[in-house]
């Protein structure tokens, strides 16, 4: 009897999982678009479930829907930040022969051979967000971090009225952050010579460490009028330091990226602004490039047999301020990120 129960249990579970299979099955071509054959595009990410990638996938879904109901999309990849697991996910996706693949690479090299295998199998691969530049991917859609830093510099210059000493909080050695810092410094040098970057602090990408180094900075140099952090944890740390020293009114703090903590500090006015890129647009554009690469036109292509695609598209970045968050629609967007099945 127990044996039967155990077997029954196993089979029930299996039936449940298979029923799930059936429910999610893409509909057959003759039911949806009789004239167009089904196409499947796979987005492969690391840390699947991360809010940023959910935004990317939302953009991809909308882009696919704009082309027609014969386009299927799926989100694949490990929940862990594990480049080898992500490479395996790409291999598995290639085995089901999709029309195109969009990849955000967990690191710069591990996925190279898997991406190359996909291209060899005739599947166009577009990189987005985190690039694997040597993988052979046809194009990259992401954020220009130099421009990202310049956006912060422009806002800083406006808020300070073109005068004052400022500092940068960053993790030296992290390429994206180095680029942001360089963009920030160069823009100020060229366009707002009255503002001097007097200090570059290493806050190790940590809120508590950022608070410590910013407290030391503000105490030793009361002339500091602005702090720019190149990552998401620097601005909350700088704000905590300024609050402790009762200097919130005197210091303009501009951060990078957003989180619920940053949103609250923007609303309270402790942080003047944060520079954000647009993952939705990045996902949208990356899909469009994958579609273009899978559908060659008469335009000569740099990567035959794939259709022509530009090698790089940047999604742009902008300053998000507390004032902008007073708009209910804008706030709702940041408070209610898209859910992915």
């Amino acid at each position, binding site marked *: 009897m127990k044996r039967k129960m155990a077997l029954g249990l196993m089979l029930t579970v299996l039936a449940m999982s298979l029923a799930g299979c059936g429910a999610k099955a893409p509909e057959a071509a003759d039911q949806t678009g009789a004239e167009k054959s089904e196409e499947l595009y796979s987005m492969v990410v690391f840390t699947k479930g991360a809010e940023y990638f959910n935004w990317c996938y939302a953009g991809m879904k909308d882009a696919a829907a704009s082309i027609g109901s014969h386009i299927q999309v799926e989100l694949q990849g490990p929940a862990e930040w594990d480049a*080898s697991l992500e490479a395996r996910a790409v*291999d598995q996706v290639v085995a089901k022969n999709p029309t195109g693949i969009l990849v955000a690479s967990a690191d710069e090299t591990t996925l*190279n051979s898997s991406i190359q295998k996909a291209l060899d199998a005739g599947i166009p691969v577009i990189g987005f967000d985190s690039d694997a530049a040597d993988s052979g991917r046809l194009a990259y859609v992401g954020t220009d971090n130099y421009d990202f830093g310049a956006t912060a510099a422009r806002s800083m210059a406006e808020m300070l009225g073109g005068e004052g000493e400022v500092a940068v909080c960053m993790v030296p050695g992290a390429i994206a952050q180095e680029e942001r810092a360089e963009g920030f410094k160069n823009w100020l040098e060229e366009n707002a010579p009255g503002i001097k970057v007097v200090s570059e602090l290493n806050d190790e990408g940590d809120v508590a460490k950022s608070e410590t180094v910013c407290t030391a900075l503000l105490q030793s140099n009361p002339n500091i009028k602005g702090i720019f952090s190149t990552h998401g944890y620097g601005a909350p740390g700088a704000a905590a330091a300024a609050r402790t020293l009762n200097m919130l009114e005197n210091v303009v703090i501009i951060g990078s990226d957003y989180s619920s903590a940053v949103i609250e500090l923007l609303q309270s006015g402790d942080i003047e602004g944060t520079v954000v890129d647009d993952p939705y647009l990045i996902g949208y554009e990356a899909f469009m490039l994958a579609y273009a690469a899978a559908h060659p036109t008469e335009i000569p292509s740099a990567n035959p047999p794939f259709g022509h695609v530009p090698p790089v598209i940047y999604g742009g970045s902008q300053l998000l301020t507390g004032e902008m968050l007073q708009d209910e629609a804008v706030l709702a967007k940041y408070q209610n990120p898209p859910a992915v099945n």
Partner: protein
Amino acid sequence: MNKRKGILSFGRINFHYLVLIVMIFIVTAAMTVYSPYFLTVNNLQVLIDTFIMEAVMALGMTMVIISGGIDLTVAGILPFSSIILALLLMREVPFGIAAVLVLLAAAAIGCLTNLLRRSLNLHPMVVTMAIAAVIKGVDLTITGGSAVSGLPESFTRLGAVRILGMPVSWIVYIILAAVFLYFSKNNRWFLQVFFVGGNEDAAKLSGIKVEALYRNVYVISAVLAAVAGILTAITYSSASYSYGTNADLRVITTVAIGGTSLTHGGSGSIAGTLLGTLFMAIIYNAFVMSGISTYYQDVVTGVFLIAAVLLSEGIKVLKERKS
């Protein structure tokens, strides 16, 4: 057929194995009907590649769990080995020497695990969790969080080597699996692991060197995790602290689904682990193939884990009643 054992075994086939084989058959059949790409040479290769590192580590983990312990260090040793190997290769150490050094380092970690377990008299879960955390921290510190790449070409070429049409990782696994399968039935030491796991005190009284046996079990598990790390570096021509994240849980799940008992030592088998490995590899592949959200993957593997434990415990209860 032996009538007395009839309720638990069909002829000489263990009932747990039979359930697994049937499940593997059902999932394979269902996926073949569902996707034209499932039963292709290409996908079957990918299916094996996808789970080969866990497969290697599951062999050692089976011995650890049969001995009554558990080893969470494997998820740290895998990336650690890939990183150390890569750094040695970049300093122009020949591959053979670098690989041996990496395996020795892993063996040392295995010894350390057992030393701490014994001297502090702590549960292996606590000790191995702590050591895994330390190793992961070291991995991050050495690499600064970025992947190690630009390895010598003589090494990166290994990733493309095919022997009888199979990549190096398959060959290594086939040899290891064959050795473990054979010895688990015929080798005196392997049989002692079952004995010690089942009843440590009785084993001590019968003159088995229990502490040396525990040490060897953890060394084997650590060395196999290092083998998996070396194979990962060969496969991806890179090394990163990110490799092997949560691999410990996947490996333990595989071993448990194969019928090795997590609740009491002394019961389990390498053959069961091989079936469990095949089952997990197929399930992981089926999820990507079917396009079902991989979020459900954890739910389903969790449910299967519970089912497998219930099944093996149920069989044990039935066996005890019979005898």
